[in-house]
């Protein structure tokens, strides 16, 4: 079946907005995605006719909620092709997943002098937790640099990996450059040295099918709100063997088995890692979003988004006053650029007034900005519901900016 973006758009009530008297052009999907009606209604419906906390309750609604929550876990499992649903841990988001993991992995496996490798293009959420860990444990953070076109200098990896390397954490797709990183190669090289790998999938899982078993990554993290689901929910996938080795990162709620002041024992994973009342409504809403994506067809979405990206890149590159950041051959969904001699902030103010939602600034990736010696970019990030006409609107807005500030 052909992918029909106009019929997809009808599923997203938020897109049907006017702003400053113009139809909203939402190109800020990298920050957060809009929610399809099925997700909105699922949450609504849960609130009005199903709400109850999960776990230990034995009354009807508690049991029903527990079942929906555990089914949500299975839906996530299937979506990312995990081997077992117990490998899927619900967290508060990508940032929550990485921080929890950094804490837990750090307590168990990181000693002074140990090394952790990340890349120069990471989002702050995949930098700062590791910096905090390294500072706490006296470990060393090492950086895979990237080339000006936005590709990782992957050949440097061999010299970065030493006998002291304990973990590699890299993003799958860059939120500023759109680069699709060669994570299979990275994982293979890491595993050849017995080093586990964390993949930050915050910008990939909504654009491309994920098979954590084929990837063979040890950990995979993403956020609900960027994949057309609710806020306050995220995923930490961990290969089963890690679930037993890692200590819990939070205490309380149902994550315990026996609590006494002398000794507390923990529950089995995944519950071991889900202290307190989880965001069960968020989890159920996220599962609904994943079902929507599956139903709509991941490959159709990817094809549509890739065509849009190509169209947008083409149109932008025709403008001689534009610098485009991120020109990797393997690229996804992100158009990051600046106008010559125009501050991204000035540009953003005007683009906004044309009814277009783009993001300006560092996109929580200051090292990328430092790489190019700039203070920020204008970023248009594409989603499944964006159209060619919307790219055209963006292009005219960019021209208008040029006219105003030239």
């Amino acid at each position: 079946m052909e992918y029909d973006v106009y019929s997809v758009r009808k599923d997203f009530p938020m897109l049907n907005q006017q702003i400053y008297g113009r139809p909203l052009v939402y190109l800020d999907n990298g920050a957060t995605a809009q929610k399809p009606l099925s997700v909105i209604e699922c949450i609504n419906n849960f609130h009005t006719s199903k709400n109850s906390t999960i776990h230990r309750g034995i009354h009807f609604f508690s049991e029903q909620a527990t079942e929906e929550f555990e089914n949500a876990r299975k839906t996530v499992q299937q979506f990312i092709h995990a081997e077992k649903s117990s490998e899927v841990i619900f967290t508060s988001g990508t940032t929550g997943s990485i921080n929890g993991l950094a804490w837990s992995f750090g307590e168990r496996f990181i000693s002074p002098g140990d090394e952790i490798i990340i890349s120069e293009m990471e989002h702050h959420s995949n930098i700062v937790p590791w910096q905090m860990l390294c500072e706490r444990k006296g470990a060393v953070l090492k950086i895979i640099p990237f080339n000006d076109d936005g590709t990782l200098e992957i050949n440097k990896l061999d010299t970065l990996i030493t006998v002291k390397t304990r973990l590699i954490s890299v993003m799958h797709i860059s939120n500023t450059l759109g680069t699709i990183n060669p994570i299979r190669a990275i994982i293979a090289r890491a595993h050849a040295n017995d080093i586990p790998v964390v993949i930050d999938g915050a910008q990939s899982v909504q654009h491309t099918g994920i098979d954590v078993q084929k990837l063979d990554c040890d950990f995979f993290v993403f956020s609900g709100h960027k994949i057309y689901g609710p806020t306050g929910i995220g995923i930490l996938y961990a290969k089963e063997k890690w679930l037993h080795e890692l200590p819990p990162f939070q205490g309380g709620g149902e994550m315990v088995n026996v609590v006494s002041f002398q000794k507390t024992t923990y529950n089995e994973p995944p519950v071991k890692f889900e202290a307190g009342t989880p965001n069960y409504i968020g989890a159920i809403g996220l599962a609904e979003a994943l079902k929507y994506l599956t139903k709509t067809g991941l490959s159709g979405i990817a094809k549509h988004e890739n065509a849009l990206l190509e169209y947008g890149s083409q149109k932008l590159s025709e403008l001689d006053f534009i610098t485009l950041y991120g020109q990797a051959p393997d690229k996804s969904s992100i158009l990051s650029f600046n106008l010559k001699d125009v501050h991204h902030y000035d540009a953003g103010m005007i683009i906004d007034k044309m009814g277009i939602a783009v993001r300006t600034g560092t996109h929580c990736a200051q090292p990328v900005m430092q790489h190019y010696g700039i203070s920020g970019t204008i970023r248009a990030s594409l989603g499944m519901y964006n159209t060619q006409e919307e790219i055209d609107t963006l292009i005219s807005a960019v021209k208008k900016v040029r006219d105003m500030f030239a």
Partner: protein
Amino acid sequence: MKNINEIQQEISEEFELYDDWMDKYNYLIELSKDLPVIDTKLKVNDNLISGCQSRVWLHADYEAGLIHFTADSDSIITKGIIALLIRILSGRNPEEVMNADLFFIDRIGLRQNLSPTRSNGLLSMIKQMKLYALAYHAKSKGS
């Protein structure tokens, strides 16, 4: 002796007599009284099944190629359920227990009407019984 499926069929029919849930529970309470109760000195932590909302102790004996289960619980309804499981699975050889397809759970509506939490407990019980069977099976093969 009837086989596993025949007994399950029998149980399903017994439960069909009751259309009111209270009556089904009353019947489980009745059944709890017939449970072959575990020797008190076997009511130790090692025999506790985890994952149940009430405490469940399960013990297995292996004699002349057959497994005999005894159990206890501090919950009467749980005891009733275990009584059903024992009626079906006790006195069988390891292969039978290992391969048993316990369709009676769906038939008598235990899964929907006793809770998933409870079902989880139930699943833990069944898993433990099958694990015993597996162990004795391996042992008999080994010898």
